[in-house]
């Protein structure tokens, strides 16, 4: 593989300014637990939604902002409801943000757009907090109430807002503190009725939200010598028992009694400002982060007289810049602290297992690579904000062949979009003639042409049919032949347009004026989901190599697939609109077969482009729901892809008749269309899309056959590049820190391996049990990095032994999660599985000397390979040799790195 290792893409990244988990703990939930999400707000106004579940840490979505820094984030959840059968339906989760303006914004998670803003007669909002969730009392028959929001403003105003009825409305002013330094810096709920607010005049004030009365004022007191006289209260938090913790600009962490509102203890936690605090759900651990990048952990201990006191137990420099924001989730299975700051990288630290587990840096770059390539034209495009950059990569040639050295790369186009929002997605056609870009509200398509005299490309904007252009898209994708452009709208619909040569000006391309909406299968969302619309948003689209199959995947893991009926017939009308059979009354059964009978949509016209028509995949319902969203979804390229069509092309044989005015072939694409999928849980599947089943390869190679060294990688896969030649079928996968190769032309494990086959049978496809092995491997961890090697542990004892009277030694288990392990019912299976894996590894690798690769015995070919040499990776896209299209040449890719120091230098 030839790698163009590039660092020239100036992709900007911005600092983390806010963090919020959708809930801080699992406790207090009686009904089904909603999925846990983490929202990360950045200085450029973007909000990233992460799925931290079970230590996966997948970035699911980026809600694009408009360059105003997100100052704080808060989640609420609407009250639970009961359906007719008495099942508890969890309320929907809602996300709010403030961004140094006098407004609170609610976000539409599904579309990624701001939903509504609430402004009022108050100045810029500095802090806000959501009321604790209402909990049903045993005795009272009280109605469930929605959470309120409380916001502290720069002029000392405290505002109460209501979120009832899926709305956001100003309720009333709670207080208005006057004074020069009366800025409300931080605010939190002590319980559902009391609010603790910290101010810039080194005061902490307690209010009752019911009547707005000021209950108590607490002063930080005399500051340490040399510090300014009044300290800023940077953060206040409440412990579960009501006690208050504050962090101030002197670096001190103070503990206040929650009943008497008096100072209990002050600890000098940092040498610089303590910016943020988190508390654990049991109220016995507090962590603070400071402006110098250190994070300290405090633990409560019970002293001799039963006195409870806090002590700073450890500290560590976690961030290279400041620690701006922290968020914690502390529950039984998972107990982590996420922190972020100016060094862009979210750091995940264990909370309960602090010191025993590693911290983990999450990728700072987006999960979906903002990079595309036109391999044929050797173009690489990258986009951010409102601009798209296109480079041409020169073929790296041997020294003597080229008389004068060419520049290795050349910026050939720079397109600034005149749109309201930032670019969500863009796509380059395979031959580099087309470029499409989408925001949440607009889709634009450009034609790129080589200019004769110049290196730069000529860019021509194409007219896009109205609804397709204005609906916007989350994902946009050209088909490999460049004739189709598919876009998934924020509302979750999939639209396709046909692109053809302009009849008047053959050099020009045009988008046919009619877009077709492809119906997605109606699926009942799990009733327990608290992110209904969000989960049904399509976030992956992919065409088969022959452009005849389109597959869309949504965040819940559902796959929708459509196929292109008929053959391209240039003689047929470009757009032929056929009314739906039922309305027309035609009894042509043939035309009926393709359209989905269960489609209940009101828009029921068939649009036929050049004799071709998109219709539902008859086997679509056989495709299972994936266990999690698909991160990599790609068709296995076939070298024989043109076989089926070549005969028919130019000989359509079907003509419109009177009875059948919109005649078109109903021939389905033939051949095997194998869709290779890697989900967020790193489950590996390959579907035969048209047959609606797992491919033979996938049957032989379940996820468990993934080499250990690849399956233990914690960073998630971002994308894939195929390297298919006559003799090899390799899939190169990459994440933000790794590049690995799977030889999918042969079996990963030995095919004669009986256990592997039995294992496959035991695993129902699409179910989450396939994830079991991965989960088990990690279930002893609390969600951050792996266990710290005991030699590196500092502070936590490694072994505790007890000397028996007879001199024998017994080990006392120090593992705090013994209980959690006991509930696993199939431990034996796991053991078998591990043994299998080891066997596999032994068979494949044979020796451990080259631990990161394995060579199949039979072929002598590498089964897999993995490197961590390149990091952090923004994207990796393939190129093709433009001179000779014959195969045999090595795969050529552009690997775009974005080192943190580059990013920081640029942003500063």
């Amino acid at each position, binding site marked *: 593989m030839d790698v163009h290792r590039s660092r020239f893409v100036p992709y900007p990244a911005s600092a983390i300014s806010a963090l919020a988990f959708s809930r801080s703990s699992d406790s207090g939930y009686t009904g089904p637990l909603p999925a846990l999400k983490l929202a990360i707000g950045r200085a450029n106004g973007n909000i990233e939604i992460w799925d931290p579940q079970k230590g996966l840490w997948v970035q699911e979505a980026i809600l694009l902002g408009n360059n105003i820094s997100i100052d704080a984030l808060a989640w609420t959840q609407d009250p639970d409801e009961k359906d007719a059968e008495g099942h508890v339906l969890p309320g929907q989760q809602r996300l709010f943000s403030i961004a140094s303006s006098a407004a609170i914004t609610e976000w539409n998670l599904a579309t990624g757009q701001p939903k509504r803003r609430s402004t009022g007669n108050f100045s810029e909002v500095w802090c806000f907090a959501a009321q604790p969730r209402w909990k049903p009392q045993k005795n009272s028959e009280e109605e469930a109430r929605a959470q309120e929001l409380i916001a502290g403003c720069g002029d000392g105003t405290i505002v109460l807002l209501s979120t009832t009825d899926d709305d956001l409305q100003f309720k009333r002013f709670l207080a208005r503190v006057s004074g020069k330094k009366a800025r409300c810096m931080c605010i939190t709920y002590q319980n559902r009725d009391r609010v603790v607010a910290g101010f810039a005049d080194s005061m902490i004030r307690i209010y009752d939200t019911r009547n707005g009365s000021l209950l108590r004022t607490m002063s930080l007191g005399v500051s340490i010598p040399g510090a300014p006289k009044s300290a800023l209260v940077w953060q206040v938090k409440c412990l579960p028992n009501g006690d208050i913790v504050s962090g101030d600009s002197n670096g001190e962490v103070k503990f206040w009694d929650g009943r008497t509102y008096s100072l209990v*203890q002050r600890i000098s936690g940092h040498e610089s400002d303590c910016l943020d605090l988190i508390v654990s759900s049991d109220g016995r651990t507090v962590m603070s982060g400071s402006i110098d990048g250190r994070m300290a952990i405090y633990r409560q201990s019970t002293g001799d007289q039963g006195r409870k006191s806090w002590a700073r137990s450890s500290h560590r420099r976690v961030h290279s810049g400041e620690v701006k924001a922290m968020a914690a989730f502390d529950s039984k299975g998972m107990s982590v602290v996420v922190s972020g700051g100016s060094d862009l990288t979210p750091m995940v630290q264990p909370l309960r297992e602090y010191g025993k587990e590693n911290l983990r840096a999450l990728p700072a770059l987006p999960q979906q690579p903002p990079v595309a390539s036109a391999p044929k034209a050797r173009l690489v495009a990258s986009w951010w904000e409102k601009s798209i950059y296109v480079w041409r990569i020169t073929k790296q040639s041997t020294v003597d062949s080229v008389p004068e050295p060419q520049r290795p790369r050349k910026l050939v186009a720079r397109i600034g979009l005149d749109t309201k929002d930032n670019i969500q997605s863009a796509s380059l056609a395979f031959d580099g003639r087309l470029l499409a870009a989408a925001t949440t509200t607009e889709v634009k398509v450009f034609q790129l042409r080589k200019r004769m005299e110049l290196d730069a490309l000529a860019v021509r904007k194409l007219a896009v049919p109205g609804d397709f252009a204005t609906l916007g898209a989350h994902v946009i994708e050209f088909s490999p032949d460049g004739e189709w452009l598919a876009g998934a709208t924020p509302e979750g619909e999939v639209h396709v347009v046909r692109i053809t040569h302009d009849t008047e000006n053959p050099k020009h391309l045009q988008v046919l004026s009619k877009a077709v909406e492809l119906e997605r299968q109606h699926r009942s969302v799990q009733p327990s989901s608290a992110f209904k619309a969000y989960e049904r948003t399509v976030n992956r689209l992919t065409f088969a190599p022959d452009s005849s199959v389109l597959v869309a995947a949504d965040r819940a893991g559902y796959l929708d697939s459509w196929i292109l009926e008929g053959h391209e017939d240039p003689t047929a009308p470009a757009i032929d609109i056929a009314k739906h059979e039922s309305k027309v009354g035609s009894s042509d059964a043939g035309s009926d077969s393709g359209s989905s009978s269960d489609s209940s949509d009101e828009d029921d016209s068939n649009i036929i482009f050049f004799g071709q028509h998109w219709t539902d995949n008859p086997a679509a319902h056989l495709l299972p729901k994936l266990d999690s969203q698909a991160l990599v979804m790609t068709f296995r390229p076939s070298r024989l892809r043109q076989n089926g069509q070549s005969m028919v092309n130019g000989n359509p044989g079907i003509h419109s008749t009177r009875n059948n005015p919109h005649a078109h072939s109903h021939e389905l694409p033939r051949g095997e269309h194998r869709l290779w999928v890697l989900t967020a849980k790193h489950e590996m599947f390959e579907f035969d899309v048209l047959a609606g089943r797992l491919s033979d390869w996938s049957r032989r190679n379940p996820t468990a056959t993934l080499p250990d060294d690849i399956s233990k990688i914690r960073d998630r896969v971002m994308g894939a590049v195929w390297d298919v030649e006559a003799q090899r079928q390799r899939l190169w996968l990459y994440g933000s820190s790794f590049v690995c190769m799977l030889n999918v032309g042969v079996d990963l494990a030995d095919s004669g391996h009986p256990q592997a086959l039995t294992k496959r049978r035991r695993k129902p496809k699409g179910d989450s049990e396939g994830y079991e092995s991965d989960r088990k491997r990690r279930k002893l961890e609390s969600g951050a990095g792996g266990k710290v090697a005991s030699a590196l542990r500092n502070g936590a004892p490694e072994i505790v032994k007890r000397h028996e009277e007879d001199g024998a030694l017994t080990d006392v288990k120090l593992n705090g999660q013994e209980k959690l392990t006991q509930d696993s019912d199939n431990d034996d299976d796991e053991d078998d599985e591990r043994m299998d894996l080891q066997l596999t590894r032994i068979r494949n690798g044979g020796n451990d000397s080259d631990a990161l690769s394995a060579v199949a015995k039979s072929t002598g070919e590498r089964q897999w390979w993995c490197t961590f040499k390149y990091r952090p990776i923004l994207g990796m896209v393939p190129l093709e040799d433009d001179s000779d299209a014959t195969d045999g040449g090595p795969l050529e890719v552009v690997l775009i790195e974005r080192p943190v120091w580059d990013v920081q230098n640029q942003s500063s």
Partner: protein
Amino acid sequence: MAQLAKRDAGVAFDGAASDSPHASKRQRKRNSRKSADESASTSAHATSEETPLKNGTARPPDVQELGPYEVTPRVPRHEPEKSPKSQAKSTRAVETPSKEKGQTIDMTMWEDISTDNTKALAVKTKPSKVSETPSKSKKAQPVSSDWSLSRGHGGTFIEQDPIFTSDNQFLIIPTHSDVKIFSTKTSLLVRSFQVDNKSDITNCALSTADPSRLYVSNSRGLLSMWDWVSGVILRKQELGRGVQQVLPIHSQDKKEIVLVLQQSEGKGTSAVAFAVDTATNQFNQLQVVLQRNLRLSSIQAHAQGSILVASARDRILVGQSQLTADGGLDLTYTWREISFPGSIISFDAQINIGKSKTSRKVPFLDVAVGLQNGAIIHYEDVLFKLIGREKKNLNQDIVGRKLHWHRTSVNTLKWSRDRNYLISGGDETVLVIWQLDTNQKQFLPHLSTSILGLTVSASGSSYALRLGDNSIMVLSTADLLPSTNINGLALGDTQHHRAPVALHPTAENRLFAAIPANPVTKGSLRGKSSTLLQSYDLESDLQIGRQALTRNMTTALNVAPSGQSVQEPNVTQIAVSHDGKWLATVDEWQPNDQDLDARYIEADASRDRGSATETSLRLWTVNDNDNTWELVTRVDEPHKPGPHSILGLAVSPTRLEMATIGSDANIRLWSPKARHRNGVAVRNSSNEQLYTWTCSRTIPCEQDASGRTEAATWAALVYSDDGSVLAGSWSWQSDSTRFVHLIDPRTGQISLSQPDLLHQGDGKMEFSGRYLVCLSQMLTVYDTLTSQVTSTISLDPALVSPQSQAPSFLAVNKLDGTVAVSISRSQKPRSTKVLVLNISGGEIKPLHEISFPGTIRSLLASTTAPGFLIVDDRNVLRSLKPSGSQVITSVISRSLTTHEPEQVTKGLDNIFGRAGVNTVAGTDGVVEDENVGGDVMKQSLTNEDATTSSRDLNSVLRIVSSTQAPSPAELFQRVVGVLAKR
């Protein structure tokens, strides 16, 4: 007789150097010693049989006349009359010194070894037929052979935290050989007692039952119990194996339980409990409390012994037992063990038996552990949590609290008495006080050197710090000001070269030593270069002053950006001028090898790299106001630059002149020159002329250097007694013949070059009168007048180079001309032999030999009295003196009482009436007639000379502390001696 002739020759030589005032004195000393021999002869008789006469190569015919070489008698002469008295006295009262007693033990020890070693004497002896020498012939021996080695002063404090007595009045600090008790009020030694001579003290601990009782453990397994108030040993118990630590843990009903940490078979350690009956002092072994295959480093007891906390390399062991209903201690412990990532350097535990609401039985045990990487880990209530773990109570997680400030290992860590603070110290020379509740740290920076040990007094009012420069400092906790300072001699580790030490030529008992800042610290982070000058009073065992001689990095962070430690210059030579007013030092600084890499290519020889070495000669003058040395002149690169470019430094005994011998085969003479500016003499504020030192002469010895590219590796340089001859000699690696050049320093002429006096390698030369004594692989005496080698003896090859890497020493006492030679074995077992020789007449006559294990750092001739000073590798100072010279008046008093009572009146006349006479008698250089016998009057008269004139009653009565005080009888003798001299 030939002997007479020889004597005449000696006189002639003395006469030739008549400006040397020591000549006559030396003569007189011989006489005084002669009478001492009479009494010693009887006791020496027995040993003289085993030690036949040995002799040099050229044995004079009249050797039969001389007494055989004899070993020092077992008991010093004055002992029989003193010891009963002193023992009777030493039963009570702190002030009473136990010196005599200790000395007795001391003497026997040294004697034992010397008799053991007589069979393997270094000096090859010929079988003698005159072993049965009549005692009369002893009279013919001119110099006393009755030498005694004094008790050791000083010494390095062992690795134990100082012990405060219960009333905070005293500090108990053991050295390797003695237990020393200092007063916290005056910082002075109050008492010291020696436990056992053959082995080292490993630990001591105060009894819990009786605060005046001290347990002392020993490396050979001796456990002794002392009453430290009176210094009386109560009980000795042989335990068989070496004891590492002794720890009284519980006392009840006149029965005390003592835990002893012992080496067990293999690599393990065992803790054995003993019961001690406090009434009868009986030891009773009870049972083994802990037997593990672990090297336990220390153990602590809490809650009357019911909780034991011990540390091994990387783990902490907590033992728990129950107190029985009647307050006794059940000795069956349940041990629990915690492993740590990293080695434990220090730990401390504190306990609180809670009276809390929760009526739980397990006490609150907090343990703080200092690790090697600088982290302190603090576990709260660890025992309860450990037990909880066993009961599968998973709520309590054993998580330590990490306090990380120290960069390197936490050498010591203690809880404050109120348990709210942790006090820690390390190599950063900063005392850190951690307030645990608020996480505030308080620092006491810039201590003189790294902190090694720390004790909090029982009341919590003071901290005692054991520092890396062999000193103890007591700080008040209220204001952190030092209230007590105890400084021992702090010579660094000079295993393979001689320590830079010098005795003050005029002031009595004043030792100057160039010391490193961290002589006691282990580990390589801190440099061991000698950078400081310590002036030390030998008699009172006190540091008088300390000042920097070169730049140093003691309290600063001495780590370069590359991570290496910053090198400090190293003082290699030190010398004091004959009048004690000038000090010369030579220091060398070598940059780190890595720093030089950029300047040299790999092919460059190490010699070229060595030219980056910076050598400077510094000359200092004494500032009388504050007794410090002021730098007057610094000469950069006095010789050709290179490593070890100055190989020797000598001062003229008669005039202000110094000589350096360089590796470039040059000798340079340095002399002061009055400083002038524009023709006007520069004077200081008190109108004294200021001087600067310049090189007055360069004496090249081309024939040595001709055709050589390499530098000399060894050299010796010495002035003769009268300063008229300078003897220098170089040794090159590639050359076998080695010349000794005799040079006239006034003209710079090489008057004689004599081969074969010194062998290759480290050689030493000293003048003793007309004789040049050369020590290399053999001992050669060369008569400079006749240009003949008068005597040569070869030495035990195992003790001299090349077999032995340890330095050998040669010293000549200018007062009586006795020569002391020390040779040591560097391989284990290390041992050293010190021989005292008399070479008057060119013959080597052994007077005394001692032998002891270990090596010595320096052997110096006393400048104000006969005898020698030995500094051993544990910084213990011992003086080797002829017994007679210790107090000259003791001879008088003895003779007064025994033989010639009529002399008393004369002597007293002399004391009270005729003080002026002595000036006449003192300078006439009368040679006594031996046959006349000890004319005491004459002796006392001739004892008067320039050096002793400063002695007066003040110096005798100036007793620094009660331990140094002599017994009343001895004091009386001294006073009489002083008065008699007048």
